[in-house]
């Protein structure tokens, strides 16, 4: 069955550095990959989407890469700030696609802690 892996260990970095989070998947080729941010006690919030034919996507201080050969996405936050501290989830369309359901499969998330 399909599997999504995100580093379960928290990532601790110093303010101003670049944070890099990893999302690996196995057993199929998704058409797109999404990243969400979740703060404690709140629902996830959509951040970025990257399609299988795109290698890189940027939005302000965020950058996402999608390597379909390695079956991996990297999520970068440049010039990180303490306000970036949160859990970041990756999500993929399931095998067979989402055109009739809109369904996504979520990773467990990686917690980022940015220290001042």
């Amino acid at each position, binding site marked *: 069955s399909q599997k999504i892996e995100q580093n379960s260990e928290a990532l601790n970095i110093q303010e101003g550095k670049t944070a890099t989070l990893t999302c690996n998947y196995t057993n199929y080729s998704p058409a797109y990959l999404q990243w969400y941010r979740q703060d404690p006690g709140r*629902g996830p919030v959509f951040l970025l989407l990257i399609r299988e034919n795109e290698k890189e996507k940027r939005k302000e201080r965020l950058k996402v890469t999608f390597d379909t050969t390695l079956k991996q996405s990297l999520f970068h936050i440049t010039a990180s700030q303490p306000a970036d501290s949160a859990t970041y989830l990756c999500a993929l369309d399931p095998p067979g696609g989402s055109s009739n359901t809109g369904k996504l499969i979520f990773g467990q998330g990686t917690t980022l802690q940015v220290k001042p």
Partner: protein
Amino acid sequence: DAGITQSPRHKVTETGTPVTLRCHQTENHRYMYWYRQDPGHGLRLIHYSYGVKDTDKGEVSDGYSVSRSKTEDFLLTLESATSSQTSVYFCAISVAGVAYEQYFGPGTRLTVT
């Protein structure tokens, strides 16, 4: 803000009692979802709906039922709550398009004692 509300936001109930959680959206989105989120498991899909009266099971549907009689409301029912259903429940809608971004409600924290 996709105009999604959930009620109640917190609930404590006893084992064996029925519980209904409500998700309400204001923007007439077709697709709606119920997830549960537990430590070590992430977000898991319980049920979803692709239209009024059109619903289907997700990966963890046992013990849950849903109903959608109006576009704006999606109800999740635990017919007889068990302690294993203690969790945080999130409702979400999907914005149809090429890639179906999802937007989540604030969540309901349910404790079954």
